[in-house]
């Protein structure tokens, strides 16, 4: 009798996502689902989905969800967690959401060491609105609002969020991972699971940045996008465990 060694996580709904072909959101959603399953968190989970491509995460992950306004997920999650400290609360935010319009909310949630988990998906562009420049867009990278490429003179420099949050005392865990190869997917999964575990153990704010491809708005095939992520993004956004608490599984 054959044993199923890989299938849809229980905490994910059996539906097809709206994401474009090759978008990494689908992989990252699945990793969240796997971690929720393994730690048996789904029944006590409240997710917060702010504005962006991933606002529809509530259609795919089968837990309670709140749809928040652009950038405000960490504040909404704070309200939930303060009211229900024993429940599991996570946000799932893109780079436009978290690193531009929501900068104040993420920094202060991190500084407070708010006992929530943030999954930060960085694809260096605004996806849902059609490929505009993000705070994470690389210098030289073109977008619909930097058609000749981002210049530091006009547009400034991309924000390295993990490095920035790592200056704060509040966070218990900060990691940057990617999902462009199977090996990276396995690493990313571990980081997400560890971040969830941090919250379960009451260690305070845990943060995982996942570098992610947006083939549609980058104007590349999915496989080329993975290569571009490796060649261009990772050198500027190094994959690293910035902060790992001792003794967490």
């Amino acid at each position, binding site marked *: 009798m054959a044993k199923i060694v890989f299938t849809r996580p229980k905490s994910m709904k059996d539906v097809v996502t709206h994401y474009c072909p090759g978008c990494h959101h689908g992989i990252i959603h699945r990793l969240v689902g796997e971690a929720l399953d393994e730690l048996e968190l789904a029944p006590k*989970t*409240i997710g917060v989905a702010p504005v962006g491509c991933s606002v529809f995460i*509530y259609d795919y992950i089968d837990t*309670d969800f*709140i749809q*928040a306004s652009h950038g405000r997920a960490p504040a909404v999650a704070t*309200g939930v967690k*303060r009211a229900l400290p024993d429940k599991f609360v996570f946000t799932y935010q893109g780079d436009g959401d978290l690193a531009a319009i929501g900068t*104040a909310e993420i920094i202060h949630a991190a500084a407070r060491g708010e006992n929530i988990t943030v999954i930060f998906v960085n694809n260096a562009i605004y996806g849902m609105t059609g490929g505009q420049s993000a705070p994470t867009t690389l210098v030289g990278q073109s977008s619909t609002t930097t058609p000749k490429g981002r210049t530091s003179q006009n547009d400034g420099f991309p924000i390295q969020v993990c490095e920035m949050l790592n200056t704060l005392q509040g966070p218990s865990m900060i990691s940057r991972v990617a999902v462009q190869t199977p090996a990276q997917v396995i690493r990313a999964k571990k980081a997400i699971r560890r971040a969830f575990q941090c919250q379960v153990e009451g260690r305070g704010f845990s943060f995982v940045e996942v570098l992610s491809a947006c083939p549609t708005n980058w104007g590349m095939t999915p496989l080329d996008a993975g290569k571009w992520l490796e060649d261009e993004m990772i050198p500027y956004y190094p994959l690293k465990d910035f902060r790992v608490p001792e003794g967490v599984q």
Partner: protein
Amino acid sequence: MTQKVLMKGNEAIAEAAIRAGCRFFFGYPITPQNELLEYMARNLPKVDGVFLQSESEIGAINMVMGAACTGARVMTSSSGPGISLKQEGISYIAGSELPAVIVNIMRTGPGLGGIAPTQSDYYQAAKGGGHGDYRLMVLAPSSVQEMADLMFLAFDKADEYRNPVMVLGDGVLGQMMEPVILPEPKEGNAVEKAWATTGKGNNPESKLITSLYIKPEEAEKFCEHLAAKYRTMAEKDTRWESYRAEDAEIITVAYGTAARLCMAAVDMARDKGIRAGLIRPITLFPFPSAPIYAAAEKGARFLTVELSTGQMVDDVRLAVNGKSTVGFYGRSGGMVPDPRDILSQIEQIESEKTGTTAATEGGAA
């Protein structure tokens, strides 16, 4: 046992909120409502509640939204510029059908304005305030006692309608001390909140709180649902108080601090033999159009008095609907009229009765 104490309006609101079961407060400092925030910081922890000073007004209102999603009784407070910042969150709270209480102790504007009392946020409060087709229930107390009493109503109605309720005071009410009988504390929520996101547990279906309706058909249905809710509010929960208005020929319409001044002016006018009265809206939304229209039909003429250059007067004119004249008198920028100034306005209208039928300045005849 009832307790009569001398309290500032801001503190009476805070104490009454705690007694009404509010256990979560998220806010940001701004004058003239700081005593409210500080009272909560001192006293919420004593009842195992949570006080958190947020990084911004935007942060505060979104924390309110998060706690509201769990079914908790939660509030925030601010003043003019801070309330403007909160509008995004208030729109989301209304769009997500969440109960929450927001207090605005009005200061002058536009812009940074000043910290003196005003009523210049009427439009913002009574017409929604943020983006989209929604309304807040707006309660307008005119005394410290009423501030305390209306907090209970605010939380109850927020729960009942799953809609944000704004308590609209001004710097005078927030800062002034008056004797107040504090309402008896209330335990627990009156309304069951099966919609709250508290984790799906063993339920087969997970819950979603959202204001996103991507299909126009569904979005319209939702907007119609909200509109029906506001009509129910108007039918069941329009509140006002009449003062010597029964036989009045000249009726002042004013709320909050302006209503207190009008009351004094009405008494002075009555002493002079002028049949003056007052209709004081307690709910600014839903607006008490019916009693105003009824009085207009009986031939009363109106004087709207506000601490602004004229905002509520629009709603009075809509209520009167051309049946009579509607004058306006207001002071702005933190200046508070003397009741004698209002009396002069009443006398002016009275003198026009015997002369021509010309409307008072700004009238809608």
